[in-house]
């Protein structure tokens, strides 16, 4: 647990945890609003967003891609709503049509354009590469106090921290309207709250979290963290506030335990290669949910 840990494991561990927290937060509200699969839809449409951004700018750079992904997520939310209204379809069906259409379009664009020279492929979009987010300047714990070394931290870390701060801030700021419109939409409307706008704002917030996390860790973690920690937390308590705290705890636990198991588990078992951290974090979150469904105090209402 020395210099090697600081350089190779600390940054991905932190980034994974921050991503998990940022997704779990809005996930609580999506879960209670029966929109749990919105996270799934959003993370699928991120792919066409980054491909279009790449085609427009001709390079793999972060900000255009984040903007493209966010644009695609918002477009998807609008399209789902439009298809639902125009076709008088239920939300699940509209979602299924829109996200498969956009994902298919993204894959086609990717195959048609010449991306062989750059690192942009479907696999990367799906499961990211948490393990590659290393800190070459991190020579030991003392580097954490060295401003020059800190500048060499992977940029994803600062971005993810900023994103978490933004998401947490927005939820803290709009806590009451969010809570009201989630639990009793009619009452919220009668109080003069812009219910539709709040719903859309929540989806935008989820999209921001999904896009930032996707950039760092791939879309599997995003979907798993939107759903599993809040779902497990929902079985622990009846209070929304407590549920949010529980979900943050579960998300952090899944991220840390998943990363450690993926990185060190195979070595403990005598193998030489580590396995996908993103996949393992999702797996651990599923185990946590299963344990909650077995033993949590508020399993049934």
């Amino acid at each position, binding site marked *: 647990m020395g210099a090697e840990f600081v350089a190779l494991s600390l940054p991905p561990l932190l980034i994974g945890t921050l991503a998990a927290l940022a997704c779990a937060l809005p996930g609580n509200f999506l879960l209670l609003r029966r929109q749990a699969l919105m996270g799934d839809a959003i993370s699928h449409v991120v792919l066409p967003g980054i491909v279009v951004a790449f085609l427009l700018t001709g390079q793999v750079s972060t900000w255009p891609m984040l903007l493209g992904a966010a644009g695609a997520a918002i477009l998807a939310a609008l399209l789902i709503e439009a298809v639902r209204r125009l076709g008088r379809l239920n939300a699940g069906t509209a979602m299924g049509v829109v996200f498969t259409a956009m994902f298919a379009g993204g894959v086609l664009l990717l195959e048609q354009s010449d991306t062989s020279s750059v690192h942009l492929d479907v696999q990367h979009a799906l499961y990211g590469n948490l393990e590659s987010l290393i800190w070459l300047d991190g020579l030991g714990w003392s580097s954490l106090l060295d401003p020059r070394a800190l500048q060499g931290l992977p940029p994803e870390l600062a971005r993810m921290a900023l994103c978490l701060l933004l998401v947490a801030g927005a939820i803290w700021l709009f806590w009451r309207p969010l809570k009201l419109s989630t639990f009793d939409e009619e009452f919220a409307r009668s109080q003069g709250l812009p219910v539709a706008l709040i719903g859309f704002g929540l989806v935008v917030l989820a999209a921001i979290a999904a896009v930032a996390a996707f950039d760092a860790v791939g879309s599997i973690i995003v979907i798993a963290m939107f759903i599993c920690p809040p779902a497990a937390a929902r079985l622990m308590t009846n209070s929304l506030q407590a549920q949010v705290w529980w979900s943050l705890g579960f998300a952090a636990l899944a991220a840390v335990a998943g990363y450690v198991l993926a990185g060190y588990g195979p070595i403990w078992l005598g193998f030489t290669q580590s396995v996908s951290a*993103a996949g393992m974090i999702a*797996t651990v979150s*599923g185990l946590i949910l299963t344990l909650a469904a077995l033993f949590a105090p508020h399993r049934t209402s």
Partner: protein
Amino acid sequence: MIWQALMLQLGYNASLVALGAAALGLAAGAVGAFLFLHKRALVSDAVSHATLPGLVGVFLILTLLGGDGRDVLALMAGSALSAWLGLRWVRWLTTRTRLPEDAAIGAALSVLFGFGIVLMTVVQALPAGRQAGLESYLLGSTAGMLFSEAVIIAFGGLAVLAGVFLFRRPLTLTAFDPVFAATQGVSQRKSDAMLMGLVLAITVVGLKIVGLILIVALLVIPPTTARFWTDSVSRLVVLSGGLGAVAAYVGAALSASAPNLPTGPIIVLVGVALFTLSLVAAPRRGALARAIRHRRAARGL
């Protein structure tokens, strides 16, 4: 070139693949119609993502035993088993806890897909040359498909179609009148098992061509499209099957006609084109027809 592909003049193998795809699309559309009537469209998303651990697991076991990991039937069996376990988990979570079904679906799809990715990284650690052949299951591919594989897919599709024909009455009854259905000896549980069995079967059959991320589109888009054209159940099923067959056939043929046209996404996009056309232009239920009716009514007042 496209015309030749549609007319089955691109050679024996490409023609066979297009016909196999058509059989698959036909069966998927018909199954999807019942899924649509039961309002369970997105369950298929959990089923398809849940195939990954079984798929990769069987590949790993076969390869480690020294066999050919790409054996289609073995991979189908493995993916069916893990998809079945995924469905059991969804059911367990929804009956045992107060979590809504959409949350359970999202949890199952992300966790099992994540676990599949973990296994996938184990495969990637295998000696070079023994790891190829699995990527195509993610997004579907017909390139280099064996004669035997195309035959298995075509017959698999027809077998599922026979299943739909066999179960059409109980599945229709439970969709509209579960109480009456129960008096006829068809419990909700039984019809659920039939429906999920069909969904599972068609997913496993279609993985190779459409890929596990997009197979859900083949179950969701055709019935949604068909719904714009008819109010009758039997017509919905037939029309949905027909639309699925057309999308899969045209998609597979187009994909064979030029390089860089991935099969799964092209099939989905053909389906989306038919959907969009119907959403806008279908008589009576289409958006255009409704808008005209609305204006006439407004003028009449």
